[in-house]
């Protein structure tokens, strides 16, 4: 089923989409530009193929569907997502994967500020974000679980793979970054370690996912070592308070 | 080995070390019972010398070559080869008090038998050090003694 977004207001578009979901598991949406909440709260084994630039809160609270975006996504894609998959063939705006509880996001290129903020995991639900390019500041802020992998592909020579205050307040989960990042950018709450065999397995699995989606060669990614960032403590602020 | 050292510049003559030592060496481990009702009355293993102007707690040095051990006639006084703690075995002590006379520091206390500091036997922090309100007692690695 193909739907054209063609300058529709998001309410009209999403109304059309809801009708489409009643009959079709696979929906292609064309000419998207700025319409918010596409796939928002959608549950089930749907397949959305989006052409254009969807608006904010793409696939928020989504549970299950597989979404592919041919262009960039705006802010807060995958907001509080429960499960499913988002593939972005361009860049993501600020706060992608905010409070994500499960599922996977593959972003071909860069992400804005606060990517993966407050991601968390519970039982078998382990969210993951794979970023092909670089990230803005506050990557993995408050991160409480899940996996972020950041590749820094096509990174400009003088740039860093992520902005300032990397993993600030992180108290769970793991971030794998390809190559290094200056210590000054990393928060005090985390430590950088070399990857062990288990880590390498996880990285390899997601890199396969990345390569198959964006037609990349594994070799070009695995030519650099990955560093693992994990929190020093589950309770970084346990000693900060005095009770009266 | 870790030993207790007194810092007279901070000793304020409150003598809480004595109270807490006595309690630590009581059966009840309760400060009020130890001081008021427990029989036989527990004995503090250290004591504060001096007055408000200048005071310090006198305490066993747990010497490397303890004179008290040499002087002991029953073998009650022993230095544990592993921990270095010098302990008076109350079962074997007959109260001859040779050790009291032998100790160059006056750190062994005379009673029915001899009483002395046992570093609270394996506690991470001896009671006197833990309860000193002014850190006048410290428990540190301080090199050798005699």
């Amino acid at each position, binding site marked *: 089923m193909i739907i054209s977004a063609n300058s529709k207001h998001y309410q009209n578009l999403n109304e059309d989409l809801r009708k489409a979901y009643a009959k079709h598991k696979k929906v292609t949406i064309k000419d998207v530009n*700025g319409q918010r909440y596409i796939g928002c709260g959608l549950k089930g084994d749907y397949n959305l193929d989006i052409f254009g630039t969807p608006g904010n809160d793409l696939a928020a609270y989504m549970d299950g569907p597989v979404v592919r975006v041919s262009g960039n996504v705006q802010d807060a894609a995958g907001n509080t997502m429960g499960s499913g998959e988002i593939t972005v063939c361009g860049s993501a705006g*600020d706060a992608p994967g905010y409070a994500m509880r499960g599922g996977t996001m593959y972003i071909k290129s860069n992400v804005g500020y606060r990517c993966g903020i407050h991601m968390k995991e519970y039982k078998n639900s382990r969210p993951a974000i794979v970023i092909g390019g670089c990230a*803005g500041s506050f990557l993995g802020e408050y991160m409480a679980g899940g996996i972020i992998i950041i590749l820094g592909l096509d990174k400009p020579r003088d740039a860093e793979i992520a902005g300032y205050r990397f993993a600030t307040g992180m108290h769970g989960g793991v971030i794998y970054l390809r190559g290094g990042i200056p210590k000054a950018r990393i928060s005090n709450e985390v430590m950088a370690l070399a990857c062990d065999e288990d880590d390498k397995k996880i990285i390899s699995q997601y890199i396969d996912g990345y390569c198959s989606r964006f037609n990349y060669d594994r070799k070009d990614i695995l030519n650099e070592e990955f560093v693992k960032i994990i929190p020093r403590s589950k309770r970084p602020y346990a000693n900060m308070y005095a009770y009266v | 080995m870790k030993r207790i050292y007194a810092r007279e510049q901070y000793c304020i003559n409150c003598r809480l070390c004595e109270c807490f030592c006595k309690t630590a060496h009581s059966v009840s481990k309760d400060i009020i019972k130890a001081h008021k009702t427990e029989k036989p009355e527990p004995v503090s293993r250290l004591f504060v010398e001096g007055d408000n102007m200048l005071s310090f707690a006198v305490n066993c040095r747990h010497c490397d070559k303890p004179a008290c051990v040499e002087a002991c006639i029953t073998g009650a006084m022993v230095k544990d080869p592993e921990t270095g703690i010098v302990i008076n075995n109350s079962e074997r002590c007959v109260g001859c008090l040779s050790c009291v006379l032998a100790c160059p520091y006056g750190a062994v206390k005379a009673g029915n038998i001899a009483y002395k500091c046992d570093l609270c036997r394996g506690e991470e922090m001896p009671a006197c050090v833990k309860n000193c309100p002014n850190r006048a007692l410290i428990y540190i690695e301080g090199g050798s003694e005699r």
Partner: protein
Amino acid sequence: MLKEGQVRIPSGCAIAAIMDKQAKPFSGSEIIKSIALMRDRSNGLGGGFAAYGIYPEYKECFALHIFYDNNQAKTLAEEFLNNHFDIKMCGVIPTKPTAGIKNSPKIWRYFALPNKIRLNSSGKNEDEYTARCVIRINSSIPGAYVFSSGKNMGAFKAVGFPEEVGEFYMLDEYKAYLWTAHGRFPTNTPGWWGGAHPFTLLNWSIVHNGEISSYDANRRYVEMFGYKCNLQTDTEVITYLFDLLVRKQGLSLETAAKVLTAPDWDIIDAMEQEEKEKYTALRATYSGALINGPFSIILGFDGGLVALNDRLKLRALMAAEDKEKIYFASEESAIRVVCPNPDTLWSVEGGTPVVAKVRG
């Protein structure tokens, strides 16, 4: 209910700008299209535009756009203007009836030069003289409000959605080389035309998204230098800060932007000695000009613009460029609607100004 100026009203927004890099004028229809796409970021209680290069025939004159609530305000203001300026031309700003635009005040414009004798005896240059006159009208003539006072530029604003405001002023009929636009989401304004954006002073114009938490610290700081914050809006105080730092203190636009969004101390601490001294001096001296809280702004001026985000980047701002033009908007889609395939497209970083100037 108190209007803005009597009470401070928080608001959120959408902003956009388009500039032709060769300063070639183009119609306002493009910017209207861009801002209209972000309709969900406004609530119909304010919209506006600033346009640069629209009055080439009067480019020597200050173009004063004034709202009048009543005839008496107009009489008083015109008396003041006649005393202080030589009016070269004046008239009503043409508008057309538009659904959604109601309760219009009288909207006039004057092309004026400072009265020579008064100017000379004031001891001020013509910018400072005009700025003071504008501040005086706005603070002392009830019902009169100068909402634009630059040369060869003008602001157009109203209570309504921005696309309605564009239609109301017939901006598709104007041609400018630089347009900025604003759609407003105030929490509770009774709808005062003067409160809409852009806010302008002389050739500065600002469109702004976000609410700054440092407002009173900034207000009390600029008021030390002769400004009066009549509107109690963030936009007004930010405009004055730029005017103070650039026009009066002589800082470059980039440096002024770095004062408003000063680097964090730990970043300054890690700088090379010379840079460190520079930024420490700037932060220590201009601490009252640090803007705190979420904002993204586009500052228009003669020949260019500055786009700036707060240092934590709490608001979104995208930029794009093609061969002719440079674009800014709160959302990428608002750029793509007028420029589907830009050569480059990027997100403006926190505390890092993007300064774009026309060539030549």
